């Protein structure tokens, strides 16, 4: 028959919400795999548990709100919230921390605003900020050490389950400790960079642990970029502004955390590619995305360096979520063939 000739339009929309969200989950898998490889089973268990909780609480609220349950569950957005929270929470966090964070994220910061598309804040980060503020002990001491950092092999699967669900936290004592960002920030006050980097936490720095996790999330992020699920503006602006701040204010590694640690430790890449790019709560115009990303990066640096928390992805993303509608109002692009778009808030008559 030869070539089929179909009438226009020839474009089609292959990206349903469900597919987009499934792709996001898919893109986190390398990161999750690397985390499991270096830090043990905690993250994997957390991701599975948080996903379950997210889906269950979404279903429960949908039932109460008398909305179609399977229709909304199939859009996978609750799953993404669960997966991101599972990745963000400390691997040895007790199960109730994950439970509270995930349920709060889905119920209070998403469904109470009217479900998917209506939430002004990134649900996963609201949940994270809630437990970070509420349970400081569990959120700072339950971070796993990699094999290179602790000098021993990772905690077994059964033991990890016991740590998370049965509260046998002493089992994990030898396997948990401060994150590199936390350790560097606290130690550098009294030491030089060389002595700090000689600490156990930095054993195998650039050799095993956090930097591979971040590289894996970077790879996942690049996949999302290639699939055009996210755009380049937010991650690039965020990483650039973070680097610039670090080069300008933190060039002296005897005083401040060095750039390599900023970029390849903590939740930087996860935040830049998976969290700040949330299509609902982030800025949506091209210029707006640049401003939004840059603001997130600057806040990230400011809170990490001069704030009391070692990492700040959640807070900086939430603060920029506040600003996103305002940024969007002032960065409306001109659409081709039309007059310049109105900028700013509508005037009141």
């Amino acid at each position, binding site marked *: 028959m030869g070539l089929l000739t179909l009438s226009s339009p020839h474009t089609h929309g292959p990206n349903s919400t469900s597919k987009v969200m499934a792709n996001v989950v898919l893109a986190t898998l390398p990161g999750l795999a690397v985390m499991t490889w270096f830090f043990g089973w905690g993250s994997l268990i957390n991701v599975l548990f948080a996903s379950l909780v997210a889906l269950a609480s979404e279903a429960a609220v949908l039932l109460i709100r008398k909305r179609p349950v399977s229709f909304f569950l199939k859009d996978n957005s609750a799953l993404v919230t669960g997966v991101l929270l599972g990745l963000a929470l400390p691997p040895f966090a007790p199960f109730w921390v994950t439970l509270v964070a995930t349920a709060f994220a889905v119920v209070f910061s998403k469904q109470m605003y009217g479900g998917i598309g209506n939430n002004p804040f990134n649900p996963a980060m609201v949940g994270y900020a*809630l437990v970070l*503020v509420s*349970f400081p002990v569990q959120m700072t001491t339950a971070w796993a050490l990699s094999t290179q950092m602790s000098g021993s092999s990772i905690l077994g699967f059964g033991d990890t389950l016991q740590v998370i669900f049965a509260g046998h936290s002493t089992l994990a004592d030898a396997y948990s400790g401060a994150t590199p960002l936390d350790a560097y920030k606290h130690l550098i006050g009294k030491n030089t960079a060389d002595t700090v980097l000689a600490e156990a936490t930095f054993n195998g720095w650039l050799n095993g642990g956090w930097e591979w996790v971040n590289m894996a999330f970077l790879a996942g992020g690049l996949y999302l970029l290639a699939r055009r699920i996210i755009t380049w503006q937010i991650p690039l602006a965020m990483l650039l502004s973070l680097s610039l701040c670090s080069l300008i204010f933190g060039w002296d590694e005897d005083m401040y955390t060095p750039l390599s640690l900023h970029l390849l430790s903590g939740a930087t890449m996860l935040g830049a590619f998976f969290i700040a790019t949330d299509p609902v709560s982030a800025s949506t115009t091209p210029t707006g995305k640049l401003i939004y990303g840059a603001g997130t990066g600057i806040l990230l640096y400011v809170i990490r360096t001069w704030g009391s928390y070692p990492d700040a992805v959640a807070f900086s993303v939430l603060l920029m979520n506040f600003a996103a509608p305002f940024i969007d109002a002032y960065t409306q692009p001109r659409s081709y063939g039309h007059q310049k778009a109105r900028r700013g808030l509508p005037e009141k008559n």
Partner: protein
Amino acid sequence: MATKSLREISLDGLWNNNPALVQLLGLCPLLAVTGSVVNALGLGLATMMVLTGSNFSVSLIRNHVPEAVRLPAFVMIIASFVTVAELVMQAFTYELYEVLGIFIPLIVTNCAILGRADAFACKNPLLPSVLDGFMMALGFTLVLVVLGGMREILGQGVIFSNMQLLFGADAVHWKIELVKDYPDFLFAILPPGAFMAMGILIALKNVIDDRMKQKAEAKKAPVEAGSKRVRVTGKIS
């Protein structure tokens, strides 16, 4: 101004026009001190004393104060009652006074009190004014206590702790530990938790109001089966 019956005044204060849930007045102390039942009750009782007293006095002088200087006069009266409340608390519940700290003198800035003086007491005779003040304050106190209870349970897993600050040494045993080894849920103890709990209470009140309205409507207008053709459209909610 149409005079309201005493029953209406009471219902207004407790429910329909509740200062905390409907007027949203006095939010600062409401959100700041409702970390536990005893704090909430202490502040509620102090507010009750001030509001009843100020409505009483304002109503008495309502025909003698010129319109132009009424607000300063009201503020003077309220400030005096707050000072009295403060001294009373210092005398009888000193520890609670210490716990509540700045929020006792700050009752003077509670807009619910000035609001009632200006909106009700200066236009109404003595008895309705006193009742209005008392009922408004009672409504406020009830919300405070419920909020305090919610936050105490969520935040610390206990309820009625430290009641001895208000009710004497015997009340030590009133404390009920609901959950053993409860990890303190700081969010509920800190002000954000108060906002959230407050939002839930307001939502609950609106739901109950809606239900009551629907019931009342259903009772009021029985559907007539008969000759009329009615175009039925669904109710959009």
